[in-house]
């Protein structure tokens, strides 16, 4: 009996690795600490009422962003562990299995659990405000999206301590990731964790498309929308049409692994390449999902801090539309080297290169927005400016990869690794950092310290180049990705040392940023006006942080840069002036939280093939949905007195 339990535990828990014991201990300790702090300050009820059951997009956005920062930390630690292992030849810091798990979780977490929630978080924070709406179209669904993402991320991270992490790369190619070559729960975690988060993301896409299409303030025609809203609309569109593909790919591989089907196996006629095909049909649009919102943010930031209209507004919009359509017809460039005919490779080579054209249009429009401007080098602006040359390098190396015969030489080498970090960090991460500094006052009511912000910017940005530029060369020297070690005598060592130094430098830059967050929360300048930067769009028309209902009166829009126009006309006061009408708001609800956690248990059951857990949990999920369907009283009115009280508390009424 005891032996049975022991055997079970040693399978269940990941044993025998000091690093993981360390993680176990720190997880337990931080859990205990959280529970203690919450109980000590009697915050349980507050947590439940204000956060866990909230369906206010602004708060959901903040939760997304917190999750994203935590995941950036986790993914960053993974990165530093990897770098430590491959700095010198023949190191023994991590063994092969461990290294494989780490790059898999690093890539997966960074893209799906860091970049995605960061973006969706920013959309939640800014889009309803920018279009002058009170919330998103489906607030309840929005909360469900968040909690699905959250439990997906939790499930994925759990693999580290229970059962073992996935180890087949974030791309999870079959047959390597199939049941035969990769038995055990690790890969199941990947499949189910991504599935949960992916469904949440799909719902977000639907939600934001409906929000932006239908809930804009009166007068805000499509071509008067702020650029971030435009980018969110187009990103949502890509999400809606790309994520179902991920859903299917994951489901098919799950069915292969759990129920013995033969989609991607080698045996019984399965087609391993079909996985690569489906994965990239989703995967390529995915990289534009994570870059387009960043483009939108750069447009906002560059225009705001050049104190000038965005140059070529229409071209900016149409180039994004074109990018979104093209993003669905280029996926094969990720497997040029899988023996395709020359015709296939030619077509996909050219379609890929074509994306350079609309992207170039955007780059030049940003440059010409700066032109004739009055450039103010705020921290947010520095991130936006640094984006231009850094992303340029990444984009151009992308075009080099798009040349199929040349890709035969670059594919899966560090040249590729360098490319995608250039665009993911130089584009997406820089964009998110710009957004963080830009919208921080809108989220929390105080600005981040500029000096610390600039220090962290310079450290991070310079280290980023020290880290990733040499990677292009090690790639050309023949170093392939996903090698847990390399032999001596190939001349790869010096550059790898430089790369690792850069990686740690980025860590330091990030620490300064975190310190800035802490410092500013305590001492940072409070933003009383709601408009700290001389903003141009509607989110700056309301208070910082925005009140629950966003705007006491829905603003009327006449031009693009609506708020700037109001300021020029002197009509800004109208948004918060009496007389008020009661405001219709949806009720908070615990159901999304509960439903998501039920799905977590269903997922956990599937990971270990414990159907006694999976089936009841899934059934309970359906039950919650049925309850929801029968729920008719899910909204309330904020009475006029309360609006008056809130508005005068913000000092906007007298």
């Amino acid at each position, binding site marked *: 009996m005891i032996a049975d339990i022991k055997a079970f535990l040693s399978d269940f828990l990941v044993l025998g690795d000091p690093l993981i014991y360390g993680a176990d201990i720190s997880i337990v300790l931080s859990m205990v600490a959280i529970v203690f702090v919450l109980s000590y300050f009697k915050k349980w009820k507050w947590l439940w009422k204000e956060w866990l059951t909230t369906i206010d997009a602004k708060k959901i956005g903040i939760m997304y962003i917190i999750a994203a920062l935590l995941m950036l930390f986790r993914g960053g630690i993974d990165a530093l562990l990897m770098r430590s292992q491959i700095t010198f030849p023949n190191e023994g810091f991590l063994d092969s299995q461990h290294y494989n798990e780490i790059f898999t979780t690093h890539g997966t977490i960074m893209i799906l659990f860091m970049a995605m929630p960061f973006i969706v978080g920013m959309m939640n924070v800014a889009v309803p405000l920018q279009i002058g709406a009170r919330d998103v179209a489906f607030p309840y669904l929005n909360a469900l999206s968040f909690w699905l993402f959250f439990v997906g991320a939790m499930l994925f991270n759990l693999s580290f301590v229970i059962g073992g992490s996935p180890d087949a790369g974030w791309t999870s190619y079959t047959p390597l990731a199939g049941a035969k070559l990769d038995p055990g729960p690790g890969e199941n975690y990947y499949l189910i964790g991504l599935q949960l988060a992916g469904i949440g993301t799909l719902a977000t896409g639907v939600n934001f498309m409906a929000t932006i299409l239908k809930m804009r303030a009166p007068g805000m025609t499509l071509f008067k929308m702020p650029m971030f809203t435009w980018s969110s609309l187009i990103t949502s569109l890509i999400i809606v049409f790309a994520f179902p593909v991920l859903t299917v790919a994951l489901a098919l591989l799950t069915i292969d692994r759990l129920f013995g089907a033969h989609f991607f196996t080698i*045996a*019984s006629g399965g087609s391993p390449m079909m996985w690569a095909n489906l994965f990239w049909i989703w995967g390529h649009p995915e990289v534009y999902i994570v870059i387009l919102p960043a483009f939108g943010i750069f447009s906002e930031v560059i225009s705001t801090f050049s104190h000038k209209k965005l140059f070529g507004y229409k071209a900016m919009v149409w180039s994004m539309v074109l990018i979104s359509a093209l993003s669905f017809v280029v996926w094969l460039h990720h497997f040029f*080297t899988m023996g395709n005919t020359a015709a296939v490779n030619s077509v996909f080579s050219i379609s890929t290169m074509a994306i350079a054209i609309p992207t170039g249009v955007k780059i030049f429009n940003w*440059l*010409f927005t700066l032109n004739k401007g009055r450039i103010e080098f705020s921290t947010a602006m520095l991130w936006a400016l640094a984006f231009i*040359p850094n992303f340029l390098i990444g984009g151009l190396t992308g075009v080099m990869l798009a040349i199929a015969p040349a890709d035969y*030489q670059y594919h899966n080498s560090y040249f590729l690794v360098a490319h995608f970090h250039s665009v993911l960090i130089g584009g997406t991460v820089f964009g998110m950092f710009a957004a963080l500094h830009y919208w921080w006052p809108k989220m929390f009511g105080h600005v981040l310290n500029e000096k610390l912000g600039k220090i962290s910017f310079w450290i991070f940005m310079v280290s980023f180049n020290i880290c990733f530029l040499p990677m292009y060369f090690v790639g050309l020297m023949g170093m392939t990705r996903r090698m847990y070690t390399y032999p001596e005598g190939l001349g790869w060592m010096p550059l790898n040392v430089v790369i690792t130094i850069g990686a740690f430098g980025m860590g330091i830059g990030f620490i300064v940023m975190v310190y800035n967050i802490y410092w500013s929360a305590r001492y940072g300048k409070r933003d009383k006006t709601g408009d700290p930067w001389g903003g141009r769009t509607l989110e700056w028309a309301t208070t910082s942080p925005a009140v629950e209902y966003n705007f006491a009166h829905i603003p009327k829009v006449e031009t693009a840069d609506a708020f700037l126009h109001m300021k020029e006309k002197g009509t800004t006061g109208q948004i918060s002036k009496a007389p008020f009408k009661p405001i219709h708001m949806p009720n908070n609800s615990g159901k999304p939280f509960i439903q998501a956690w039920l799905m977590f248990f269903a997922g956990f059951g599937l990971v270990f093939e414990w159907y006694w857990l999976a089936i009841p949990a899934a059934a309970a999920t359906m039950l919650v949905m049925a309850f929801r369907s029968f729920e008719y009283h899910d909204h309330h009115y904020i009475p006029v007195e309360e609006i008056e009280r809130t508005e005068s508390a913000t000092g906007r009424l007298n």
Partner: protein
Amino acid sequence: MKRLTLKSLGVLALFLVFLTGCTNKVAVLNPQGPVAKQQYDLIIWSFILMAIVVAGVLIIFIYVLVRYGRKNSKGYDPEDEGNAKLEALWTIIPIIIVILLAVPTVKTLYGLEGPPKPANATGKKVEPITIEVTSVDWKWLFRYPKQGIETVNYAVIPEDTPVKIKLKAIGAMNSFWVPELAGQQYTMPNMPMNMWIQADHPGDYLGRSANFSGKGFAHMSFHILAKKDANFDAWVKDVKANKPALTMEKYKKLLEPDIAGEMTFSSYPKVLDKKDAAMEQHMNNDDMEGGMNHDSGH
């Protein structure tokens, strides 16, 4: 702000040094055969075009920052919102660049389908040789069907001779990459593929798997030894005379997941030749029911 752009220029300069100077260790930029050479030419051509784009963008970037980055710079115009001519310009130039890239890309793609053209000026046509390359977890098997030889983790080829590589996989996918001789192709179970390599000079060219295949992946490197024609024939003779035969038992052992050193066999089980396709299928199957009579129609 200037620091940022200067740095980018520095980086560019560094890149140029790498291109012109010590490229011996930079395998991709050191092509040693016609296949790699074609790819190298494309790389250089694309690099030149990219450098032009970088220069163009950086010049504008530096100009606007320097000109409009000061507190009281003249020419501030908050209403400046577009310029049809300029916008047309930066749509058309990229289109031209893309065309300049696309044409040689397509040409090269079709060119790579056949054997490389003879490299030396004599232009004499040489009979290609064929090597069947199979990746197994985690080693490379090289089979010379005509010579009847099998080697592990290294292969010998005659110089200036097109070598047809037939790629197969048992187990996970890998990718066959010898950067100095040719860009890679995947090895895939159930999908035999071909590629060509050719070496201009005798030498020892390092290759490795470029596609992750599990625990032993990092150790999946191999050597391609190019020899003068006569030496190649001598090597074949020597192997035939002095090396052991690959038995079925030994072969099955090789298929087990493990890393291995270099090995040489004077022959391999003939059954592998005959029931080649069926045999690979068999080895790849995880259950035996579908086994040998799997339709290998493709």
